[in-house]
């Protein structure tokens, strides 16, 4: 028999899978009924909404901070570039969980937040830290500032991927450094920046669960609150996991199409999407042209270096 190794491997995999499935079904302590009861519980769904909100807000903050830091990092001014380097070093060098806790206890460090001119009028506006820094603000500060450090490196790589000649041409036309960055370099850097940003978003979605330690009722903490009342710990952790899986799956699909779109110009013929492949199997002889055959604005970037 040829390929007997494959048959053995397949058999072992099936055996393990079967025993796992059997144990999941027959072990009552999974309490699948409870999972079903709580999957669409309003508290869980509220937590889900908060998780999504936090993911979006933290990513927006992260991208904005990242772009700013990347531009600062590439500045010819050593102080500006150094400040950005310090930020990245600090925020990438400490765990995000520790940062979250720090922001949570910021009121102990600064009981009031004073805004004003240093030395002249130091406390123009004075706010009570305990009222201003809500759990949402803590979560946003913790996740957004941390994400900014990672996004900075992604944006920097994107900016460096744009050929130097583009900058020279823009400068020779009399464009300022900022104009060159905004109008010429950043739009072309997007092809390199977008795909890893998708990864970061997926990763952020899961990282928001850390916020449960500061009692912000996102998906995980909402589930924890329920199981602290009814002691159905495992089923509620499964409920949270199911929702995380649903959301990361949706984001991964979005990521796949995004990468396809921004990968254009690198290879002539794009591989078929799973949907297109399914279609060509189901409807033989009905081949639709792939996107690469059509011309659109974004496909122009890859033509020259």
């Amino acid at each position, binding site marked *: 028999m040829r390929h007997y190794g494959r048959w053995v491997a397949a058999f072992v995999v099936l055996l393990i899978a079967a025993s796992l499935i059997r144990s999941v079904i027959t072990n009552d302590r999974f309490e699948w009924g409870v999972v079903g009861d709580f999957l669409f519980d309003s508290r869980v769904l509220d937590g889900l909404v908060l998780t999504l909100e936090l993911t979006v807000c933290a990513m927006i903050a992260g991208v904005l901070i990242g772009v700013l830091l990347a531009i600062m990092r590439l500045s010819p001014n050593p102080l500006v570039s150094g400040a950005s380097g310090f930020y990245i070093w600090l925020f990438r060098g400490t765990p995000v969980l520790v940062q979250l806790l720090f922001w949570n206890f910021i009121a102990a460090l600064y009981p009031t937040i004073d805004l004003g001119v240093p030395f002249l009028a130091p406390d123009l506006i004075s706010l009570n830290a305990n009222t201003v820094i809500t759990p949402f603000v803590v979560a946003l500060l913790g996740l957004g500032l941390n994400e900014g450090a990672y996004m900075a490196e992604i944006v920097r790589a994107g900016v460096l991927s744009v050929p130097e000649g*583009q900058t020279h*041409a823009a400068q020779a036309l009399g464009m300022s450094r900022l104009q060159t960055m905004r109008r010429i370099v950043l739009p072309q850097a997007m092809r390199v920046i977008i795909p890893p940003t998708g990864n970061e978003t997926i990763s952020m979605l899961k990282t928001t669960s850390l916020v449960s330690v500061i009692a912000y009722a996102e998906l995980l903490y909402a589930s924890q609150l329920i199981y602290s009342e009814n002691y159905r710990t495992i089923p509620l952790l499964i409920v949270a996991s199911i929702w995380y899986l649903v959301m990361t799956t949706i984001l991964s699909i979005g990521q796949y199409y995004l990468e396809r779109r921004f990968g254009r110009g690198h290879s002539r013929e794009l591989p078929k999407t799973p949907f297109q492949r399914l279609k060509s199997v189901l409807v033989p002889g009905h081949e639709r042209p792939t996107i690469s055959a059509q011309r659109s604005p974004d496909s122009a970037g890859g*033509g020259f270096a």
Partner: protein
Amino acid sequence: MSVTPMIEADLVCKQFGRNEVLKGVSLTVQPGEVMCIIGPSGSGKSTLLRCVNHLEQIDAGRLAVDGELVGYRQEGDKLYELRENEVAQKRADIGMVFQHFNLFGHMTALQNVCEAPVQVKRVPKKQAREVGVELLTRVGLGDKLDAYPSQLSGGQQQRVAIARALAMRPKLMLFDEPTSALDPELVGDVLKVMRELAQEGMTMLVVTHEMGFAREVADTVVFMDGGVIVEAGPPAQLLGSPREARTRDFLSRVL
């Protein structure tokens, strides 16, 4: 002399680290003059061009464009380094065409041409568009307005790049080996545009390997080697009967 020279270089020096690229280059380009610089690679031709356009700072000597020092402001006998936006302003008056075209890849031909007038000179979009269409038509690309650089041949891209530089209404055009990256059959179209430009009286400083173009269009040909000007003169004299042995040696290899 009554007329201010367009370019006046006096013993210009430039070094990258320990590598001396320009070792005291002096030349004068009058308004309306076409000067071609020839010479082996690494002789400092492109660096000289980049210095004229403030893309590189010179280390010693004096370099002035249209009577104004490059990169510095003179007050009394003190020199002050120009601020970034002042440098940008000066660059806006000097057109530059690169060996590798450097068209903006995410913009159409017309957008490439309109970008700087709108962003730098604050020309109204509609007016910039009209000028852009006119310029692209002039370089023979009236039917490629909405094409992206990747859809154009090298020769077409270079002509868009020339139109892009002209859209800023420059008083001086710098060409850095504009045909070196082109397939032989595409060189002619680009040279034709440059020839027309010269005939219209544009002041041009051209680094080139096209001896035919230099002979036909240039008022002066300069031969550079090892960071210095070896010899300069009218094309017929320099290309026909060079005085220096190094010039003869170079010409015998390229002609």
